[in-house]
């Protein structure tokens, strides 16, 4: 089965708004239903609204895989809502976990770290580099996700084993580690910069011990004021 260009563009555009009405009660449910409603026939829309009135939550970029597969299910006229519900229930968790690990935890911080170092050395090149590379990767998943979801149906979940997830994650983990070392290039050969050693160790200890982010930010602000006060 093939998805027409108009329907593809409608899904892609609505996918940019998947988080717009994120709530604790339904998470991305309204965004998910909006994407489906935009491309389904009137009959399927009624069936769809009756079937999905619960919670939907996955990684925003990965939602396109699930939406693509769900649209296909309605196009094929699958008349057992349980089958669709089961697919969504399994796939939303799998894609959420894969997306969190690949995008939030690896790719975005690695690209930001690299872009930050580049921007502190070469100015505007850094932000442009980040925007270009990041856009290529997230748009790839959004576009390919819709096509793969629609063409592979329930089997779209096997995409999680493909190189676009495994190899790309490996690549960005290494880029992040490399950029971590490259941070040294930002320091100057002055005595004050030796402070970076104890401060980094202190912050790493806070992170490793699982101290909440809010507490770390408060500690950071207190340190900042203290150091400014003592004219360090």
């Amino acid at each position, binding site marked *: 089965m093939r998805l027409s260009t108009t329907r593809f563009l409608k899904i892609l555009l609505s996918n*940019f*708004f998947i*988080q*717009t*009405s994120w*709530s*604790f*009660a*339904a*998470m991305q*449910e*309204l965004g998910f239903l*909006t994407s489906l*409603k935009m491309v389904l026939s009137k009959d399927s829309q009624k069936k769809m*609204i009756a079937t999905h*009135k619960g919670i939907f939550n996955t990684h925003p970029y990965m939602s396109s895989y699930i939406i693509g597969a769900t649209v296909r299910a309605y196009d094929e006229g699958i008349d057992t809502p349980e089958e669709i519900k089961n697919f969504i229930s399994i796939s939303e968790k799998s894609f*959420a976990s894969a997306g*969190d690990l690949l995008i939030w*935890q*690896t790719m975005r*911080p*690695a690209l*930001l*770290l690299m872009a930050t170092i580049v*921007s*502190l050395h070469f*100015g*505007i090149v850094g*932000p442009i580099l980040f*925007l270009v590379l*990041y856009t290529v990767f*997230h748009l790839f998943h959004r576009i390919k996700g819709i096509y793969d979801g629609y063409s592979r149906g329930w089997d779209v979940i096997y995409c999680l084993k493909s190189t676009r997830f495994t190899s790309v994650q490996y690549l960005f983990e*290494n880029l992040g*580690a*490399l*950029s*971590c*070392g*490259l*941070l*040294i*290039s930002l320091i100057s050969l002055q005595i*004050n*910069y030796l402070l*970076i050693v104890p*401060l*980094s160790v202190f*912050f*790493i200890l*806070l*992170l*490793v011990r699982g101290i909440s*982010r*809010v507490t770390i930010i408060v500690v*950071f*602000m207190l340190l*900042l*004021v203290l*150091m*400014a006060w003592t004219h360090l």
Partner: protein
Amino acid sequence: MNALTLSIIGSFIALDKYAFGEFGISQPLISGTIIGALYGDIGTGIFLGAILQLICLGGLPIGTDIPPDAQTAGIVGCGSYFILRLSNTPGHALLVATLLAFLTSILGGGTDIVLRHFHDRLFHRFQHDEERLYIYHFAGLFTSFLRTFLMFLIVFVTASLITVPPHLPQLSRQLFIIIGISMGLANASYLFVKNSTIVYTIVGGLCGLALLVS
């Protein structure tokens, strides 16, 4: 540029995280560049955005966890700096802007929770009125905009009223870099340094040293 205009622009940038796209333009590095460009000092905007980015690097929105709002920190930090600089020394402006940025990032995490609870109501209304799905869904654009707009307006108006007495401590650019790199190193080590990647960190460190010496 006045506080009102900056709040409107900042709120449009912040929509990137909360309501439209997640294209990455609300990250402190990018928002700092945009705000710097609007104030005609893109170099300072990139510098502030980059250091704030290093500090906020580890805040990850995993699952339903809501960490302090890095995007708000970037917009408030850069915007407040340029407002504060009009009536303060750069050192005072930097200290107050950084503190405002992170106080607002914590407040931003809290208001985000309130907003999402408000969106619960939109969902419940949809359950009783299914025909208006688009209205209830896209109302989130307005509520998300309003949340950040009100927050930014309060902070930017406050920043425009602050004049720090000259004898109070200042934050030098050097100290800001030191603490930024320290947080950046801690965040990056926590995220990326493992047994399997340590070789890359060492190679990066050696390249960094070579760049530093040259």
